[in-house]
């Protein structure tokens, strides 16, 4: 892809507006069409375009595994955490009325946080899935150079267990 300078430049130009649009969709979802699901997907599209043009190795530098994998869980936990917060503040699970003094403000805050959680999970899952497909058989050298990632040790022991099974 080193030769396609038009594609490379226009991708660099397109990425910020796509991300900005995703954020607009995320936080304007209360007033117009949009919300966490769409915003997460659009935010992921920015990364997918980047991967298509610059390849999975550079994409993993932009969205490293240690960011995308935990983010998948962070969104769900944020969502569930809002539910726990309402429970602790004396309401029912996911009853946002108790989050602020005024039920309307509480609802607004609750919906904002919950949609943010949805958006984070959808973004992280879509980027991870796409990079898993793209990096699957390719020469994803960056992986070999990255032994210090938090996941290296765990998977190393996993591989040990598998090889023991085979032997």
């Amino acid at each position, binding site marked *: 892809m080193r030769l396609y300078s038009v594609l490379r430049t226009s991708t660099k130009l397109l990425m910020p507006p796509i991300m900005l649009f995703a954020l607009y*969709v995320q936080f304007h*979802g*209360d*007033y117009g*069409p*949009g*919300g966490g*699901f*769409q915003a997460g*997907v*659009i935010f*992921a*599209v920015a990364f*997918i375009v980047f991967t298509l043009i610059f390849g999975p190795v550079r994409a993993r530098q932009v969205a490293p595994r240690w960011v995308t*994998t935990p983010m*998948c*869980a962070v*969104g*769900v936990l944020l*969502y569930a955490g809002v*539910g726990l917060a309402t429970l602790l503040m004396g309401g029912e*699970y*996911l009853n*946002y009325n108790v989050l602020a003094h005024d039920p*309307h403000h509480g*609802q*607004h805050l609750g*919906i904002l946080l*919950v*949609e943010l*959680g*949805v958006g984070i*999970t*959808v973004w992280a*899952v*879509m980027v*991870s*899935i*796409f990079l*898993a*497909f*793209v*990096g*699957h*058989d390719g020469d*994803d050298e960056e*992986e*070999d150079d990255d*032994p210090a990632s938090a996941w*290296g*040790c765990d*998977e*190393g*022991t*996993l*591989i*040990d267990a*598998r*090889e*023991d099974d085979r032997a």
Partner: protein
Amino acid sequence: MEHIIDIVLMAFMAVAAIVMIRLRSLFAVVMLSGIFSLLSASLFVVLDAVDVAFTEAAVGAGISTVLMLSTLALTFRDERPPRRRDPVPLVVVLVTGAALVYGTLDMPHFGDPDAPIHHHVAPRYIVDSPVEVGPPNMVTSVLASYRGYDTLGETTVIFTAGIGVMVLLAGSWRRRRRPASGRTPGGTETRS
């Protein structure tokens, strides 16, 4: 006018679906499925479901087409011609379709405001959600507030599917590559 657009888009989708059955080049089929999703997104706009149209355009026409293309890159581009023609599936499909069409004869007509679906739960959302929840977009208030449990479950499903894909694809890659490459950062070299 809306009806004409609706009928035309529906006809396009039917044509696209039938061509997708007949084509053997999977690459062409995937491109057609992108077109199919985009057509359905335009249809959702005509049917006043703007949020759904938005999602379908981003997800169906964008992400799933890209995912299918990357699958084809890892597998095959063409489908093998069938060894023999089996009439059973066609009969099953025709009988099921006829039964379903028979079932629609009792359904309320398309766009009928008096249909039962519009008189049970929906009025509560339409009338009360601006007062009880606040956001002008009713879909958002139903999604995140009234049916918050539902959405939490859906988010968990997405999370689980993502983990499943990562385990299926990333796991196999490590198992094959690591012993061969000779560089074993996880401390595996002591055993091999």
